[in-house]
């Protein structure tokens, strides 16, 4: 069974048909990269899985979006529950104006957890998983805003991990970072895939090739090609994919 799956999904922003009959399945512990030109629907597709598109006025979604086999758009599913299972990391690091510790503890607290020892252990574990612990363990009470961009992004990943999701969505997580910080995020993705299913949107083709098991190429709202990353970058089956990844698009 797929960890996350879409079946014949169509999404409309008003009259704009942003996703067209997208059917795709992602196995547990896979890293899947979404690539395609701006406006192709890859971020829209990513946001299906934590229902972030719901907040956009005039959006209409058809088809099925399944998380662990369960349709997350049917009436009985609470958005808060989905977002506990599906964490998200955005392009620009967005730490809260709080301490490093409180940033990571935030998700636990709003979920009603108050056990101090449990929170401390979870914060430490999450920061270790996000490969940030060694750099911040002596200054957990410092403002998160004092961290570098790369550290802030790893803090946001730690914050997402603290509530123990099973899926992590990453929307251009390294595009605002310098090459060293970007490499750390990529290393982190390699570590995290042992425990999480990861879907990453990236404009950086080399990054997609390095971090993902499978790659999906979107164009004008359609899923053009979805294949093993090595195969897609070595021998794409569709001319559009080849034109895009070789930089001969349009």
């Amino acid at each position, binding site marked *: 069974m797929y960890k996350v799956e879409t079946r014949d999904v169509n999404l409309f922003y008003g009259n704009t048909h942003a996703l067209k009959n997208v059917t795709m399945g992602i196995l547990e512990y896979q890293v899947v990269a979404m690539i395609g030109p701006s406006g192709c629907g890859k971020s829209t597709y990513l946001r299906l899985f934590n229902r972030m598109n719901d907040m956009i006025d005039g959006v209409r979604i058809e088809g099925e979006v399944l998380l662990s086999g369960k349709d997350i758009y049917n009436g009985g599913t609470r958005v808060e529950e989905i977002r506990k299972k599906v964490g998200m990391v955005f392009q620009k690091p967005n730490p809260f104006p709080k301490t490093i510790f409180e940033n990571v503890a935030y998700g636990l607290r709003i979920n009603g957890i108050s056990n101090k020892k449990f929170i401390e252990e979870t914060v430490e574990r999450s920061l270790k998983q996000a490969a940030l612990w060694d750099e911040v363990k002596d200054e957990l009470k410092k403002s998160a805003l004092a961290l570098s961009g790369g550290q802030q992004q790893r803090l946001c990943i730690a914050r997402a991990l603290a509530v123990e999701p099973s899926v992590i969505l990453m929307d251009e997580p390294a595009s605002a970072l310098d090459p060293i910080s970007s490499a750390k995020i990529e290393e982190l993705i390699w570590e995290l895939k042992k425990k999480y299913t990861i879907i990453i949107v990236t404009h950086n083709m080399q990054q997609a*090739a390095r971090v993902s098991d499978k790659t999906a190429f979107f164009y004008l709202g359609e899923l053009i090609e979805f294949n093993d990353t090595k195969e897609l970058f070595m*021998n794409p089956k569709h001319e559009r994919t080849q034109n895009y990844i070789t930089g001969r698009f349009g």
Partner: protein
Amino acid sequence: MTTHLDTELDRLKNEIEEMGSLVRNQLGKSIDAFIGAKKELAKEVLFQERRVNAEELKIDRDCENIMVLFNPVAIDLRLVFAAFKINSHLERMGDHAKGIAAYASKLTKPYAAELLTPLQLREIVDHIDDMIASNLRAFKDADTSSAREIFRHDDRLDEWNKKAITVIGDYIRNHTDEVEGMLNLASVVRKMERIGDLNKNIAEEIIFYVEANVLKHEKEKI
């Protein structure tokens, strides 16, 4: 839309073509020198070998630069891989031409006509030259049907090699005082057969570049 990468890849293809022309020239001259015992021509081939080596290093460098600066993928990546290997195969052909020229430079007189006529060295070298030319065109035009023809041409060379060894063996039996010269001749035949194999390797690289099919060690797929 022509990209900067397209320009570099076209340049790489042109360089492979030039390398191929150089090697064809070397091979033709080395056999002429060998058949006619022309020492000066043999020396020219030995001298020109430096150019072949220099060209090989230049193409290697250009392949590396494209890899580093452009991070090619898909057909572009396969083209660079193929060019890198074709370059190496052509250089090996150049080495064989040099080896033939080295034997030629030591000849004091041409081999007997009764031996050279049945061996058909000139015809075979023309056949090899056609194979190289055809491969170079196929690489430039991304033409895999021409590349596949090379395998058929190589079969003819394999047959010729077997016959040539028989001819040389028979000659040795009747001319036991000429064994050393016959061993050199057998070595030249062997080098030509190896050049045929290298042409086959080049054809495999062209098919990999265009179709992403790996034919190496997979004769049944040809």
